[in-house]
C-alpha cells in the first residue's frame, strides 16, 4: 500500500507540474492542434508527420491521430504527410490558438512512374524510434498468404529478427526471446493466444485491423510487462463518412466487415466477423460418427466511437474469438480470447492530450468428454483487468512528454475439473497486481539530434488468497523437501517485486539521407507461459511470479544505421543488438506442468543471451515494391546451479529452441498492369536446434535412445517459396468492387522438417530409425474472392 501511495504521489506531482508548464508558456506562444484523418473514411492516422517548413521541425500524431504544436506567433507552412497518402501543405497564420484538422487522401495505384513527394517518406530517418516495424494492412495483403488467409503473425515472421520454431507453431520469437515475451495488444487489451488452429492462422482478422506496429527494441516507456517485444494492433474505428463494407470468401474462411457512421463525422461503428467452414462439408460424409465432429474457429471484432466535442471522444471496442473442436462423445475442446476496451480521449488543454482506458481480457479454454462414464469438464481462465491513464504533453516543438500510470489485476484459474463421477479437482487460483508508472520525453536538439529518454517503474504483488510452500534451502525443490505450508488470506500481499526500467533512444541525422540510432531498454516480466513442448499449445497455462518464481529481466542495446536512396524510394537499415536476460523460467526433466500444486518444484531458473545483426532493404513506392531482410543471430540459455540436479547440460550455455543463425526472407510484388499484380516471397533459415540420441538401449522390451546434450543438433535447413496473383478490375462509378487472389504456398513442395525424432522400427523393435516430420510438405494452392462496397 505504501508503494502505491508513493506511486500516486509522484504521479500527481508530474501531472501538476506539466499543467503549470502549460500555463507558464502560454503568453508568448500559440498552439496549433488537431487531428489527421483519412479523407475516405475519417479514420485517424497514427504516427503521421506534421512538419513546419520555416522552423525545419515538427511532430507526429499520437496513437489517436492527434497532434499539437506550440509556436511563436507568425505565418507558417505546415506540411501534413503519411505513407500511402498524398501530402497536404497548409499556410497558417498563427495569431491565436488554432485547431486544424486535416484529411489526407489515400494515393491511388500510381502505375505511371513514381511521384516523389514530401519529407514524410523519410520517416525511418526522422523518427527516433528504432527496431520498430510498422506494417500497413495494404502491404500485408500483398504478401502471398497461406491458403489465402491474410495473416499478421505470419507476415511479421518475414521481418528481420522475427522467427518461429516451425510451420504451424503458435506465436513468434523476437530477437531470441520466447513467445511469452511478446506483449500482444489488440486495442490495448492483452491477447494470450495469438493463433487459431494451434498456430496455423492468427486470431487477427485483417479486415478489422487498421494498424500494426512491432517494437523489437527501444521499447517506449508506455509499454511494460514483457521482455522482448510489443505488437500493438489497433482495430479500425469505423467509417465516419458513409456506409461501407468489405469481405471475402476463401479456402479456409469467409469474412464480412461493415462500417458506418451513426452520426456523420461524429460517431461510427465497425463490426467484423470471420468463420472457418471446412467442417460444414462434414454433412456430406457417409460416416455417421464423422458427421458429429466439429472443428472450426471464428472471430468477432467490433468497435464504436463517439466524438462528444473537439475535446472528448469515446471508444468502445471488443474482440471475441473461439476455436471449437468436437469428436462425437469422445472429446470436445474450445478455447479463445475475449477482450473489451473502453477509452476516453480528453484534451485538458491545447497541449495536454489524455487517454483513460479500462480493459478487460479473458483467455479461456475448456476441454472434456461430453458424455459417458468418463464425462468431465475442465476449464481454465486468465482474467486481466487493467485501468490506465496516459498523457501526452506537447510542451513545444522540441519536447513532447508522455507520462501515465497503469494498474493491472490478474486472476489465474489454472484448472478446474468437474465430473459426475469423480470429486471435483481445482488447482488454486492465483491473484496478482501489476502497477506501472512512466514518464518519457522526446526532445529535439538542434537540427540533427533527437533523443527519447524515459523511465518506467513497475511494481508487482503476488496477492492472497494462496497456499505457499517453503522448501529446505540448499536442496533441489521437490515435494519431499517441503518444510512448511503457509496460508495467506484474500488481498494479503505475499510477495512484492519491482524496479526501474530505463528506456533510451537517440537519432543522430548525419545527412538528409542517413542517420545513426542507438537505443537501450530494460524490461521486466512478471507473468510466464508454462510450456515445455517445442510448440506451445492453446492448453498451456500461464502463471505469475511468486516467492519461488522470480520476475524475468531483460536489458537490450541496439545500434542502427539507416539510409535512404533514390529520393527515398529505397530504405536500407542495419541494426546490431545485444540482449541479456535474467531469471528465465526453464523446466526440470520430466516436469509435470498441468495440475501441479507445487509447480515451482518442477521449474528451474536460467539466464539468456541473444545477439545479432539485422539488415533490411525496402522499396515502398512504384510498381515494384517489397523488401529483402537478413538476420544473423544467436540465442542461448544457461541453467546453472550449485545443485547438480538443477542444471541443464551441466550448466553450460546451449542454444534455445528458436536459435537460428541465418534467416533470410524476400517479399516482392509487381504491378503488371491496372488489373494484375503478382507477388512472391521466399524464406530461408537455419534449422532449429533439437536433441539427438548418442546411443540406444533396451528396457522392458522397448528400444529407446539415450539423450544427453540438449539442443545439440539441428533440423535441416528450412526454405520455401510462395506465389500469388491478384486480379482487380476497377469498375468506375460502381460501388461494389471485387478482386480475386490466387496463391500458391510452398511452390516447389519442399518437405520442410518440423522436427526429427527417433523411434523403434514397427516391424523390428530392435531397429531404431530417425523420422523427419514435415507439417506442410506439399504445394498448397488456393483462391480467395474479396469484395468491398
Amino acid at each position, binding site marked *: 500500500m505504501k508503494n502505491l501511495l508513493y506511486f500516486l504521489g509522484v504521479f500527481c506531482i508530474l501531472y501538476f507540474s506539466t499543467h503549470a508548464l502549460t500555463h507558464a508558456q502560454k503568453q508568448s506562444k500559440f498552439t496549433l492542434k488537431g487531428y489527421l484523418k483519412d479523407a475516405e473514411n475519417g479514420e485517424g492516422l497514427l504516427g503521421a508527420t506534421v512538419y513546419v517548413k520555416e522552423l525545419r521541425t515538427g511532430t507526429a500524431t499520437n496513437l489517436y491521430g492527434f497532434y499539437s504544436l506550440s509556436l511563436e506567433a507568425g505565418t507558417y507552412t505546415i506540411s501534413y504527410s503519411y505513407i500511402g497518402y498524398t501530402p497536404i501543405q497548409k499556410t497558417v497564420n498563427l495569431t491565436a490558438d488554432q485547431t486544424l484538422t486535416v484529411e489526407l487522401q489515400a494515393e491511388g495505384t500510381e502505375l505511371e512512374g513514381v511521384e516523389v513527394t514530401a519529407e514524410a517518406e523519410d520517416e525511418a530517418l526522422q523518427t527516433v524510434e528504432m527496431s520498430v516495424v510498422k506494417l500497413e494492412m495494404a502491404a500485408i495483403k500483398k504478401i502471398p498468404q497461406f491458403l489465402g488467409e491474410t495473416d499478421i503473425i505470419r507476415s511479421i515472421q518475414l521481418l528481420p529478427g522475427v522467427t518461429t520454431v516451425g510451420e*504451424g507453431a503458435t506465436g513468434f520469437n523476437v530477437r531470441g526471446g520466447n513467445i511469452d515475451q511478446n506483449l500482444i495488444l489488440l486495442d490495448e487489451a492483452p491477447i494470450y493466444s495469438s493463433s487459431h488452429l494451434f498456430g496455423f492462422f492468427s486470431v487477427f482478422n485483417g479486415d478489422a485491423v487498421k494498424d500494426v506496429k512491432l517494437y523489437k527494441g527501444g521499447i517506449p516507456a508506455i509499454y511494460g510487462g514483457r521482455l522482448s517485444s510489443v505488437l500493438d494492433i489497433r482495430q479500425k474505428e469505423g467509417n465516419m463518412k458513409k456506409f461501407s463494407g468489405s469481405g471475402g470468401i476463401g479456402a479456409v474462411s469467409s469474412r464480412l466487415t461493415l462500417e458506418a457512421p451513426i452520426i456523420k463525422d461524429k460517431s461510427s461503428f465497425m463490426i467484423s466477423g470471420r468463420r472457418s467452414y471446412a*467442417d460444414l462439408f462434414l454433412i456430406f460424409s457417409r460416416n455417421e460418427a464423422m458427421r458429429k465432429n466439429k472443428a472450426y474457429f471464428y472471430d468477432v471484432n467490433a468497435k464504436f466511437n463517439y466524438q462528444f466535442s473537439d475535446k472528448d471522444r469515446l471508444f468502445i471496442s471488443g474482440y471475441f474469438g473461439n476455436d471449437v473442436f468436437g469428436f462425437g462423445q469422445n472429446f470436445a475442446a474450445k478455447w479463445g480470447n475475449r477482450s473489451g476496451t473502453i477509452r476516453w480521449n480528453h484534451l485538458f488543454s491545447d497541449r495536454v492530450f489524455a487517454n483513460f482506458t479500462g480493459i478487460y481480457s479473458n483467455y479461456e479454454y475448456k476441454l472434456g468428454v461430453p458424455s459417458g462414464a*468418463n464425462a468431465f469438464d475442465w476449464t481454465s481462465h486468465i482474467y486481466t483487468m487493467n485501468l490506465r491513464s496516459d498523457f501526452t504533453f506537447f510542451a513545444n516543438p522540441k519536447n513532447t512528454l508522455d507520462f501515465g500510470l497503469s494498474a493491472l489485476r490478474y486472476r489465474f484459474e489454472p484448472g478446474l475439473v468437474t465430473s459426475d463421477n469423480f470429486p471435483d479437482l481445482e488447482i488454486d487460483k492465483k491473484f496478482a497486481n501489476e502497477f506501472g508508472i512512466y514518464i518519457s520525453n522526446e526532445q529535439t536538439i538542434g537540427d540533427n539530434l533527437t533523443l527519447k529518454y524515459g523511465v518506467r517503474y513497475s511494481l508487482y504483488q503476488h496477492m492472497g488468497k494462496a497456499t505457499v510452500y517453503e522448501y529446505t534451502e540448499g536442496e533441489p525443490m521437490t515435494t519431499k523437501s517441503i518444510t512448511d505450508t503457509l496460508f495467506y488470506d484474500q488481498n494479503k500481499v505475499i510477495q512484492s517485486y519491482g524496479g526501474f526500467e530505463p528506456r533510451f533512444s537517440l537519432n543522430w541525422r548525419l545527412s538528409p539521407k542517413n542517420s545513426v540510432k542507438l537505443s537501450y531498454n530494460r524490461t521486466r516480466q512478471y507473468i510466464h507461459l508454462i510450456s515445455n513442448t517445442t510448440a506451445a499449445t492453446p492448453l498451456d497455462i500461464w502463471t505469475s511470479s511468486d516467492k519461488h518464481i522470480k520476475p524475468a529481466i531483460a536489458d537490450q542495446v541496439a545500434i542502427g544505421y539507416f539510409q535512404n536512396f533514390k529520393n527515398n524510394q529505397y530504405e536500407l537499415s542495419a541494426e546490431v543488438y545485444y540482449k541479456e536476460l535474467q531469471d528465465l523460467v526453464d523446466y526440470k526433466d520430466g516436469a509435470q506442468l498441468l495440475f501441479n500444486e507445487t509447480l515451482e518444484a518442477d521449474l528451474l531458473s536460467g539466464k539468456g543471451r541473444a545477439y545479432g545483426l539485422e539488415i533490411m532493404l525496402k522499396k515502398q513506392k512504384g510498381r515494384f515494391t517489397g523488401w529483402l531482410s537478413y538476420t544473423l543471430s544467436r540465442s542461448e540459455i544457461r541453467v546453472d546451479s550449485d545443485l547438480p540436479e538443477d542444471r541443464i547440460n551441466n550448466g553450460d550455455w546451449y542454444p534455445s529452441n528458436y536459435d537460428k543463425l541465418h534467416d533470410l526472407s524476400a517479399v516482392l510484388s509487381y504491378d503488371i498492369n491496372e488489373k494484375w499484380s503478382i507477388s512472391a516471397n521466399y524464406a530461408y533459415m537455419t534449422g532449429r536446434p533439437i536433441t539427438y540420441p548418442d*546411443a540406444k*538401449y533396451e528396457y522392458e522390451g*522397448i528400444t529407446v535412445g539415450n539423450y544427453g546434450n540438449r539442443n545439440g*543438433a539441428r533440423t535441416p535447413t528450412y526454405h520455401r517459396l510462395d506465389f500469388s496473383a491478384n486480379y482487380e478490375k476497377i469498375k468506375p462509378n460502381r460501388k461494389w468492387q471485387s478482386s480475386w487472389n490466387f496463391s500458391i504456398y510452398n511452390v516447389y513442395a519442399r518437405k520442410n522438417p518440423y522436427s526429427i525424432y527417433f523411434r523403434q522400427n514397427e516391424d523390428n523393435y*530392435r531397429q531404431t530409425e530417425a523420422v523427419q516430420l514435415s507439417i506442410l510438405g506439399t504445394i498448397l494452392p488456393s483462391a480467395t474472392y474479396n469484395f468491398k462496397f
Partner: protein
Amino acid sequence: MNTFLKFILNFKLEKYPQKGVVFGLFLLVFTACEDIVDLSVPRGETRLVVDGTVFHGQPLQRVILSTTSPFFEDGQTPRVTGAIVVIENDLGTKDTLLEVETGLYLIEKQGEIERSYKLEITLPDGKKYGSTYQTLVTVPSIDSIYYEEEDTPFASDDEGNLSVKFNFTDPKEVDNYYRWNYYINGEYFNDELTFTDDQFFEGVEVPEVDILREFVELGDTVLIEQLSITEEHYNFLNKFNQNLESGGLFASPPIPVRGNIVNLDDPKEYVLGFFGVSAIERAEIILK
C-alpha cells in the same frame, strides 16, 4: 488408451488435436508427412542398463543387464554376463539371482507386500552398483472387465471399433501409482506405456478405463495386469515415456533419463534403467 486416461491423466495432446488440425484445415488433403531419414548422430560412451522388477503375484523375478550400443547399430544391444546380482530386503535377507542365459538373471521367490527391496550388482570387472530401496505396496483388484462397440470419430474401414473397458476402486488416503500391462492373445502389447497417479480419482471408484481401442477384434483374448508402482518408479516412467513420444507437433523434447541405480564408488557414472517393485492383479476377457 483413450479419452479419459489419455486426456485427464497423461494429457496426451497427441491424438485428437493433431487429427483435428488435419480435419479442421483441409478435410480432403492433409499434407503432414513422415519420412525415414539418414543422418549421423553422436556416439556416446557405453553405459550399463538395468531392467529389473520384484513382483508380488508372479513367482519368477527377473533382472536383465545390458549396455547401450551406437544408435543406428543393427540388432540387440550387448548383454552383460558374469555379474553377481543380489536382491536384498529391508530385513537384510539377500538372494543371489542365477544367470540362466546371457545377461538374464532369475530367481524363484515372490516379493512380499510392505517389504522394501534393493538391487546390488557386481560386474566381472569389480565395479559395484546399487539401487535405492523400493517399497512394495498392494494394488486394488480389477472390479470388472467388459468390452463395447464405440463410434470412433476417425475410424476407417480397417480399424476396429471395439474397446476393452475395466474399472477398479482406488484406496482412500494413500497416494497410489498404477501401471497396466496388456496381453492380446497372450502377446505383450507394448505400443504404449500406461501408468498414472491417483490425483484425479483419489479414493473413488474409477468407472471406466477405456483401452486398446482400434487394436482388438472379436475373438481376441485380452489379459490386463494392474500393477502398483512406487512414486520414484512413476517419475522414472514419466521421463522414459517422454522420450518415446517426442515426435509430434506438441511433443516435449527428449531428455536424459536416469533411473535409481548408481555406481557405489562413482556416483557420477550415468546408469540407465530402473529397479522396481510391483504387486499385480489380473483380469481376463474373451471378446465374443
